[in-house]
Structure formats: structure tokens, C-alpha cells
């Protein structure tokens, strides 16, 4: 069983930050029950960590494992697209796979 490791970068305890974390947890709990780890980093408190990963926008989730790394920006409000973009198993990819403009 593959171990998934995500790091979620947010800025402050805003509605958007909380929404992103809730969406990501809900997604992982349904697709990767018990086999994932999630770190949440507040860039306002730890800007050095944002610098290391060259994070510009928040929320940003980085899938650190399995490799290759993947990144998604936004509060992940569309679960289907988020699962596909993060390469999560268990559900078919959305019908339209092409990325937006």
C-alpha cells in the first residue's frame, strides 16, 4: 500500500485556509483511509518553509510522496478535479481531463 504524504500551505486561519484543509482531509479520508499523512503549514508563521518550496499562492497542497511531487493551488472545492490532479486512487478521473486555459 502506497503511503501518501501531503503538505498544505495556507496563510492565516482564514475561511479559505480552513476550507482547503477540510476539503483535503475529506478527500483523503474517502480515497486513502488510514494511509496518508498531512502537514499544515501557516506561511505567516513559517515563511522560511514557504521560501524553501517557492510557494506563492495559498492554499497550495504539495504531494511529497509518492514521487513525483504534485502541486495544486486553491481551496480544492471541486473534489473530483482535486483527486485527479493529486493522483488519488479509487475513483475514475473526471470525464474532461484537459486542464483549464
Amino acid at each position: 500500500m502506497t503511503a501518501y504524504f501531503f503538505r498544505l500551505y495556507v496563510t492565516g486561519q482564514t475561511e479559505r485556509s480552513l476550507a482547503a484543509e477540510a476539503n483535503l482531509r475529506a478527500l483523503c479520508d474517502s480515497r486513502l483511509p488510514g494511509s496518508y499523512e498531512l502537514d499544515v503549514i501557516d506561511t505567516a508563521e513559517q515563511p522560511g518553509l514557504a521560501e524553501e518550496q517557492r510557494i506563492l499562492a495559498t492554499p497550495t497542497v504539495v504531494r511529497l510522496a509518492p514521487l513525483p511531487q504534485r502541486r495544486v493551488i486553491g481551496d480544492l472545492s471541486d473534489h473530483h478535479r482535486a483527486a485527479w490532479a493529486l493522483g488519488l486512487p479509487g475513483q475514475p478521473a473526471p470525464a474532461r481531463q484537459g486542464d483549464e486555459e
Partner: protein
Amino acid sequence: MNGSDMTGRLVTGISGFDQIALGGLPSGRTTLVTGSTGSGKTLFAVEFLARGILRAGEPGVFVTFEETPDDLRRNWASLGFPVRQWEREGKWAFVDASAGFQEAPVIGSYDFGALAARIGHAARQVSAARISVDSLDAVFTRFAGAALVRHELARIAGTLEDAGVTSVITAERAGEDGRISRYGVEEFVVDNVVVLRNVLDHERRRRTIEIVKMRGAPHRTGQWLFTIDPRDELDRMCGGGFFKDAIILLVGPSGAGKTLTSLKFLAAGLRGGERCLAFTFDENREQVRRNSAGWGIDLDSAEESGLLRIVCEYPEVASLEDHFIRIRRAIEEHQPGRLVIDTLSALERIVSPRALLDFVIALGALVRQHGITTLLTSAPAGRFTPQLTPSIAGEIASLTDVTITLRYFEQHGEIRRAIAVMQTRGSAHDPGIRQVTIDGDGMHIAGPVPGTAGIISGAAAFLTLPGTADPPASESPQPGG
């Protein structure tokens, strides 16, 4: 860190810019610098930081969106800015926003909170006084929506101002006219806006700079030439060169260097591809040619190429009104960027001082309307009576932007020449009196003439400051000539 003095100015150190901005950028605030491709935005952003370090030891943060820090370090080393060394010394920090962003898909809403946090972090690390952000477009082009751009720009500007720094944000402009910035909202978020232009004008490419707004602070309006020869000492004395559109009055007795200064002024314009027009009322064409050839200035080929037009006339051949009409006609035909009138004193022979003053007022209106940088010369009556300025000189001086005085003075039993910039309107300049030497290569402006008084007033005398035993000669950095 700077205080957040709202009305204070931060001297940028960018040659010529501080004069236009009447002192510099508003301290502790953000200024948007927009321009089309090739207008010099990045250079402005880099120089803003580099001059801060070089002039004032003020550390800076450079936020780069387009080029990587590695590319930038390499490029700027060739400009003489040792960024790598400054980074080691803790004077310069990069925020690398150039990579790792374009590939990520966007799902749901987001903001640039992390960028703001990183900028604040870097600013604290080096105790930054200046920040440059170059340029926002790389991020914003991907995300249409004026509301987002406006909101995020306000956030970044807020971060910068909270950090107590003076900052420059660059942004791309689609063309030379129309909207100031791509989204049409940037300028409403930021208090201060500067536009750089790179335009073809009379078949010549010119870079200009214009301050569109500077909230709560006076500044010069109109477009200004952006490039100034940094090697010219006179430019340096004037605080970085003359403003475009400036009217400069050059006062000095014959032989003090007036004609040479005006020839140099023309030659510098011609070298930059600027069209030049010269009216000389003192000398005939052959004398002008011989003078300039003697200084290694080739006027013939400049005239042949059409860049330069020289009109030599004796004042007596026409009335002053006719002279004015001829000058106006020549300006309209030739469309010069620079104009020399040498000398007003010759015209004084044919009219009353009052009429000459009217002439200068009319000429001033004419050249300002055409945006012509104008040099007027004027001679006092006699070689060794420097106190005798022309009767109208005082009034004319008040009409001009810059007054430069050339004088003879006596020191150590020799007649020497001195130059002083008396007034440059609304800008800083070197208040010192400098020694001038003239040799086969032209005019050289040397160090200040120390320990003397009365050069400009005409009664030169040495000053010995109380408590200083040294005679002034021993500390005077006189060059050999």
C-alpha cells in the same frame, strides 16, 4: 528599517530621477513603475536597490517573477553590481518567484498570501529599506479578473508598507498610449505611478520617464529623458544632468568657457542622436567651425547628416522681433531637441534690456512648448570685472531653470577659471564652486575650489577658518592643469 514618514522622500540615487521626483520616491510607500517591453523597468528596479546599497548602505530585497536569481546575478555583474557579494554581506536578498508556479493546476479560490509572507520574511532578514518587485505580470497574466489583481496588489503593497520599506513594483504596459497598466486597476491601488516609455521619435529611439502621480507630493510633470551621460562632471554638478525641457543660462566673461560649454552641450546631444539647433550672434560660421574643430568636435558632418543646424547672424541685420521669428521658424522646421543661443549679450546691443527680457520670455514659452532643452549664454561686460553681470541677467536668471556661472579668479598669482551651478529649479545640485581647466581635450571640471570666497561676487579672497592653521593651498586638490 525606515520610519513611515509619509511626506519624506527617499533619494533613489538613480541618475536624474530624483530631480524629476523633486527629491526621490515617497519614503515608506510603494511606487508602480509601468512600461512596455524594453522601456527599462527591470533596470529601474535593479538600480533602485543597487544605488541604495552603494549610496547609503541600505539593504534591499529583490522579488523576481520572470528571470531566475542566477540569471539576474550574472546579468547584473556585467553592469557592475556585485549582487552575489551583497548577498553574502546580508545587504541583498532574493525572493524567487520565478518557478514552480506555472505548472500547478488551480482548483478553487486562492490568494497570494504566501508571497506576501515570503517578502516580509526576506525584508526582516536583511533589515531591508528598499524592495523591488519585478514584475507582477508573470503572475497576473494567468489570472484574469480585475478584482483579484486589485485585491492581491493591495495585499502586496500593504505588506511592503507594513515592513516600513520604500518599494518599486514594475508592471507591463501593453503599448505606449492608453491605459497605464495592463489591467487598468494597478494605478488605483498604488499611490505613486511612474511610466517609462521607449518610443520612436523622429526616427530615433528614445527612452523617457514620466511621473503620472505621486500622491500628496509635488513632482515634475511631463516626460523626461531617461538617459544621462554619467561621466560628465557638469551633469553631476547639476544633480545628474539637465532636465529635458530645461532652460539653462550660462553666464561668464569671454574666454571663460561659454562657447566650449555650448559646443559640448551640442556634441552630447548629437552623440545621442538628438537634433540640435544653434543660433550664434557673436561669431561667423568660420569662427564657429574653427573653434569646434579645435576641441575635436566635428560640426560639419553633423550638419551634413541633417542633425545639426547652425545659424550665424549679426544682431544688427534684423530687429529683435525678426530674430525671434527666424528662431521660431527654424525650430518649427528643424524640430530640435536642443537649442543654443550664443549670446544674448550680442542681442543686447540692438535693443533695450526690457525688450531683451521680453524676447527671453517669449523664447522660453516657445521652447517649453516644443520641449526643447535650451542653453542661453550671456557675458558680463569685461574680462576682469566679473561683478558686472548684464543688466537683465538677474531677471533672466529667474526665468530659467538652471544658472551656471563661469568666472575667472586669482589664486597663487595665477588667473584660474571656476564654475558654479547657481540654481537648478526644484532640485538638488552641487553647491560647490569647482575649478575648470581647459586644454587641448576641452574643458575639465576639477574638484571644489577650497578656502576661497568672493569668486562669484568678483572679489576673490582666501578664507582661513578660525582654528585651522593650514593655509588653504595645502589642502587644495589642484590638478596639474
